[in-house]
């Protein structure tokens, strides 16, 4: 048992969907469990942090982390696993790009805390209390982790060796990654363990994509009965397949639902959202019907579409508190 490669799997600011995706290996999970020594996996195994701390540096062959980084405890866990592991795999869109929770960078933590604990319609909080890092209850000291104002990707906190995107990453790519790891057949450091092509190229609707795409009106998915075989963009429905890496299995498209970009950008693109938005603006052709700018402005919440999974990896930074902005201007 001891000569099997040790693997640790841990969550940060995560929904545990990546854990479910690993369990979705189904029959193969039993084989994987026989081929490796799973030394840490809180959703399934009873090892505590002390156990993880007990390993020598780099004693664990592969540390897999899913979830973004939002508080001090998550940063500590990420650093601990980095220290103990030869290789780190960022699993899923949150670890790779920040994921859905990264949308929080479009607001402030102050705004979130005030809404959640004071202003939400079901809250009864006569003293206006907020959760505290330290609280004494009947003389007992209770502590909570420190929250950061910003949601970070994993590689903004620690060095990452490989990336496997997806929300969640699909079964075949997880199995390929684990097989490559077990057989020591690994690509260069920094590789995304996913195809290099854009989703459009593998989309079953690709043959209906017009040679010259012209979007003349933007429609929202609930307003129309989308044709299940025609390119969404050709129907005026925002779909990010043209700017998104392939590998997901076109799962959303197969249930007549457009792409929201969970696989992140295609190779060579640094800011997924900026690239998608600029490309989209090139496709808008209002022509004789009016100003193309008006058509772009008719898209509600463009940032929420193009940065659905990638805000923390973008060049945007986070929303600043108004008083901080004023202070910086002086």
């Amino acid at each position: 048992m001891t000569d099997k490669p040790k693997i640790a799997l841990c969550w940060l600011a995560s929904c545990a969907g990546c854990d479910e995706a690993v369990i979705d290996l189904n029959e193969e999970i039993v084989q994987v469990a026989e081929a490796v020594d799973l030394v840490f996996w809180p959703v399934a195994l009873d090892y505590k942090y002390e156990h993880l701390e007990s390993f020598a540096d780099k004693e664990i062959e592969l540390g897999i982390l899913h979830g973004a980084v939002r508080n001090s405890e998550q940063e500590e866990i990420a650093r601990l696993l980095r220290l103990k592991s030869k290789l780190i795999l960022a699993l899923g869109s949150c670890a790779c790009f920040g994921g859905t929770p990264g949308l929080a960078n479009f607001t402030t933590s102050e705004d979130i805390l005030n809404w959640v604990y004071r202003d939400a319609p079901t809250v009864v909080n006569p003293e206006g209390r907020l959760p505290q890092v330290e609280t004494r209850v009947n003389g007992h000291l209770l502590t909570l982790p420190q929250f950061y104002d910003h949601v970070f990707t994993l590689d903004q906190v620690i060095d990452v060796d490989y990336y496997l995107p997806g929300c969640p990453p699909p079964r075949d790519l997880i199995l390929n990654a684990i097989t490559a790891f077990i057989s020591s057949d690994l690509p260069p450091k920094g590789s995304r363990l996913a195809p290099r092509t854009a989703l459009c190229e593998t989309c079953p609707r690709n043959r209906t994509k017009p040679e010259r795409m012209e979007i003349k009106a933007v429609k929202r998915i609930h307003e129309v009965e989308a044709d299940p075989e025609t390119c969404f963009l050709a129907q005026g429905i925002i779909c990010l397949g043209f700017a998104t890496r392939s590998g997901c299995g076109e799962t959303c498209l197969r249930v007549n639902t457009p792409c929201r970009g969970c696989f992140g950008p295609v190779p060579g693109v640094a800011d997924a959202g900026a690239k998608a938005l600029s490309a989209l603006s090139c496709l808008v052709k209002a022509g004789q019907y009016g100003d193309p700018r008006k058509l772009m402005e008719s898209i509600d919440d463009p940032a929420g579409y193009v940065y659905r999974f990638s805000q923390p990896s973008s060049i945007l930074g986070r929303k600043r508190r108004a008083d901080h902005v004023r202070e910086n201007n002086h």
Partner: protein
Amino acid sequence: MSEKITINPITRLEGHGKIEIFLDDNGKVDDAFWQVVELRGFERFCVGRPAEEMTRIAPNICGVCPSAHHMAATKSLDALYGVEPTPTAKLIRQLEYNAFVIEDHYIHFFFLAAPDFIVGPDSHPAARNILGLIDKVGREVALQVIEVRKRNREIIKYLFGKAPHPEGGLPGGVPKGITEDARKWMKETADFTVEFARFALKLFKDVVLGNKKYLEMVRSEAYKLSTYYMGLVDENKKVSFYDGKVRIVDPEGNEYALFDPQDYMEHIAEWVEPWTYVKLTYLKKIGWNGLRAGNGTSLYRVGPLGRLNAAEGMATPLAQKAFEELFDMLGGKTVHNTLAMHWARLICALQAAEHNQIIAADPYLTSKDIRNMGLRLQREGIGCVEAPRGTLFHHYKTDRNGILTMVNLIVATQHNAAPICLSIKQAAQEYVTGTEVKEGLLNRVEMAFRAYDPCLACATHALPGTIPFSVIVKDKKGETIRKVERPGAVA
């Protein structure tokens, strides 16, 4: 010397949690806290997004129960756009939702909870997991567990693309219909699942109820809490998952409230404690009476046992028989035994499987009439489902373009959060004396929260973060005396 014990992280649950147990000068448990240290902020960062995107954003609150958030969001959109789903769309939604309840209940029972019983509460922590369970029950049974989960998730994937994170629910409908070929394999899946559900209940009876030690634990005062109970019921007051009215019973089992989910704000309120990120819900009309069970409590429990207590029975025949057995064995209504949640969970999965047999035989299921396009924006919508862990509410308001201006979510683990604190304190008082605590006894404290199948990502949808769970020993001033460590793996 007064000390404290910390368990971190708590394991075999979804999310990050931590338990703190404070001891008095005699080494007896003075107080104990179950802390949720994770937040993400969905309610706030969804504001400004188009409402129809909630069926794509809300599932990401939780990777274990994304179908619950997907369906609550879809039903909120029905209300927001003043539209009823077509009969076929409703059947398709119910079929998917039942498949989800099934796979979710079984992943909890077999992967997270059953190792405590089948491998044993005192077994070595390195073996007390799904892999140890496979060693005990054999590969044949393990493959059946994997098979039932896989086949039910195939239904979710066929209809909504992915599991986890189903996508595409629409106001008034669903994005994809069911072909006759698909109906056939879905019917076979439902038949297979009913057989599996009967097997799972028999296994529970043999392994847990048939074992004197475990039965004593189930009946023990250490795992017994007198609270109100809440769950969704159909027009006959039977357990319902997809829709219905919310019913609340008092600790004696008398009907306390029966209301339309649209009126949830009249009955449920959230309390803020500075030592945890989860808001604690309570019965608004009684008022917040603190972390207290029994007389004067305003706390209620949800989830499998909560809905069995809150209902007058199950909606399908085999599940009804199992329901009667549970109450016969545990002294009739109301059952307050926390560990009976596991039994109730398996009964709920059986009802969902039986219901899917009925749906899969319905001639309307394969109709192409899957969308009702008569949308009329109401600018406010409330959607409610009975999630596996308990009743889930989504509440949205929008501007005149259907852009979200307000999102309020009340999730199952919030309802249970205060009772979980009380349950782990009870178990700690029973099993913990002094700091030289055997690992197996600390596991019994964890068994008290594990029965609830808490989902901490859901409970703390508010901001990104984690809930640690460890056992730390501190003195009355809060100084750490020692950490109680679990033994490491033995190769």
